[in-house]
């Protein structure tokens, strides 16, 4: 203790050791992202489909709404069709490839917007419940239970029956219904992060609640949020397809993959490709998004473990 004042200087690290630094958390994350095969495959497929959806007017060979009663039910090129309609035409003579390309817009739009709306609602509720606890938590938990007791398809059916089916209605219904998983996951993550001492340190410094939520808690639960976003996107896309198939979602003639399956189902025994092509694309998109979600979970979970 006597040599105290010089101690601060000598306590400095060995200068030889100073140059050795580990990678930053960001560098580690990117390294794991590029090393994860499932995540990369999913991301590439989703990326390609997104580009196709954005560039639809440039890529589509025909107008997706243009009917031609003379060119109905043309088979795709691999079943003996012509390159005029590479994936054939539907029962109204509309180019199948063009409808598929425009359908990607509907699916991705619904996936992104519905996940964004429900993500906003669910995250706000979950973070508030996890951070404040007590009555806020009791109310949020009750709302989650109420929501989980409502079957999505039945509620959507009732809403569409009242308001009529349209893209906007479907997006709103899904956005207002799919927040349950966000709320559950964000609540649990917030409860966990709230226990960390850096939150207590920020409180002891005098940081305001919004500041703590935004700068101390949100960055540390963002990885869980991203995973839920991807899973709920896939969920919303599948639900839209299901609602459209039942005639409750996007209304004709809007090109939607679910609607295309629905319109093709009468001819399924004779022309199975009418159902298989949109079904396969839907399958590929949902699989890719789920691969991305699983990959993101793996990539971020290993960070929490270290």
């Amino acid at each position, binding site marked *: 203790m006597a040599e105290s004042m010089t*101690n601060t200087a000598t306590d400095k690290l060995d200068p030889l050791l100073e140059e050795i630094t580990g990678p930053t958390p960001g560098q580690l994350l990117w390294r794991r992202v590029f090393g994860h095969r499932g995540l990369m495959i999913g991301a590439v497929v989703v990326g390609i489909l997104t580009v196709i959806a954005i560039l639809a007017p440039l890529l589509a060979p025909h107008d997706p709404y243009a009917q031609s009663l003379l060119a109905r039910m043309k088979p795709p090129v691999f079943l003996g069709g012509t390159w005029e309609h590479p994936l054939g035409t539907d029962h109204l003579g509309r180019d199948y490839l063009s409808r598929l390309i425009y359908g990607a817009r509907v699916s991705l739009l619904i996936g992104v917007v519905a996940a964004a709306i429900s993500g906003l609602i669910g995250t706000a509720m979950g973070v508030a419940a996890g951070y404040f606890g007590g009555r806020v938590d009791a109310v949020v938990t009750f709302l989650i239970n109420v929501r989980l007791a409502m079957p999505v398809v039945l509620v959507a059916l009732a809403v569409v029956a009242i308001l009529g089916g349209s893209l906007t209605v479907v997006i709103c219904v899904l956005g207002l219904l799919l927040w349950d998983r966000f709320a559950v996951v964000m609540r649990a993550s917030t409860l966990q992060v709230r226990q960390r001492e850096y939150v207590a340190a920020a409180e002891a410094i005098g940081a305001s609640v919004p500041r703590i939520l935004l700068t101390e808690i949100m960055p540390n639960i963002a990885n869980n949020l991203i995973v839920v976003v991807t899973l709920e996107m896939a969920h919303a896309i599948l639900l839209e397809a299901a609602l459209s198939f039942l005639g409750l979602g996007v209304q004709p003639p809007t090109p939607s993959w679910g609607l295309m399956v629905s319109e093709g189902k009468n001819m399924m025994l004779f022309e199975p490709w009418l159902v298989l092509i949109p079904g396969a694309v839907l399958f590929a998109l949902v699989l890719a998004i789920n691969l991305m979600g699983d990959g993101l979970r793996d990539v971020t979970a290993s960070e929490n473990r270290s």
Partner: protein
Amino acid sequence: MLDRAGAAHPTLEIRNVTKTYSVKQGLMAKPKPLTALRDVSLSLRKGEVLGLVGESGCGKSTLAKILLGLEAPTEGEVLVDGQALGSHDRLALARRIQPIFQDPYSSLNPRKSIADIVSLPLRIHGIGDAASQKQAVRDMLDVVGLPARVMNSYPSQMSGGQRQRVAIARALIIKPEVVICDEPTSALDVSVQSQILNLLGDLRREFGLTYLFISHNLAVVEHLATRVAVMYLGRIVEEAEAGDLFDAPAHPYTQALLKSVLTPEPGLGVPDTQLGMAYPNPIDPPSGCAFHPRCPKAGPVCSATAPVPVPMREGHVECHLFDPKSPLYEDTSR
């Protein structure tokens, strides 16, 4: 309570503080009260280092949280400069009292750079512009013995000792008067512990700090503390000047704690504290003196009535052995 000469008001004081939590056991069971602190009074005078020792679960950290204003006491009051904690401005209070936490792996936000972490207090309190804040961080890192190079690092790139230095820098950058150290070395390697303790000792002299030093390790407390309070099951059972307490511990629990300190000599094994029984369940504390089931000197009165604090030396002790009104008093040859 106990009269003490000295400053008009202790910097930080708690009076008759009780803190109860309700604990749910099982789905249908009624929540039971867990009394973490029972009628505790303690004062922290300017410039001193008050060591607070006790086993895990005796209420040390609860006391720290109450002093920091992170939790409200169920009963009793917390006074800062003789005025209620609640009457002080939250930011002004934060500038005077700062914590250093136990686990440097949990006390630094893993998503922020060291510069961000250390400058946060300056940004929240709006002290200086970006350039002067950066310079202040650089100076503070130098004071705690870290090279300026670490400013752009993240906590995951640092060792436990380095992280604790960062946590100390964050606590001291707004120049507080009181630092509440909640087991600041227990998560560190033994060799690093001494470095951090020396650093805390140096900083205290350099900045004239007052410490409340919480630990379960008596050796650590002996190294730094000027006064020691011993806690058992939510009560302060003995309080004395550090020299007195380590030379002649009065309370049987303090004696047992001192015996439990590991000797550097190999082959002696774990010392026998003669405490035997495990720590009691705080939901269901023993009757009378909470320590009586483990006390080697307990008499019949100990399980019947709770002892009252008896002034002794520069502090107090709470044990029937030292209470002149207690039947056990004659038994000891003091």
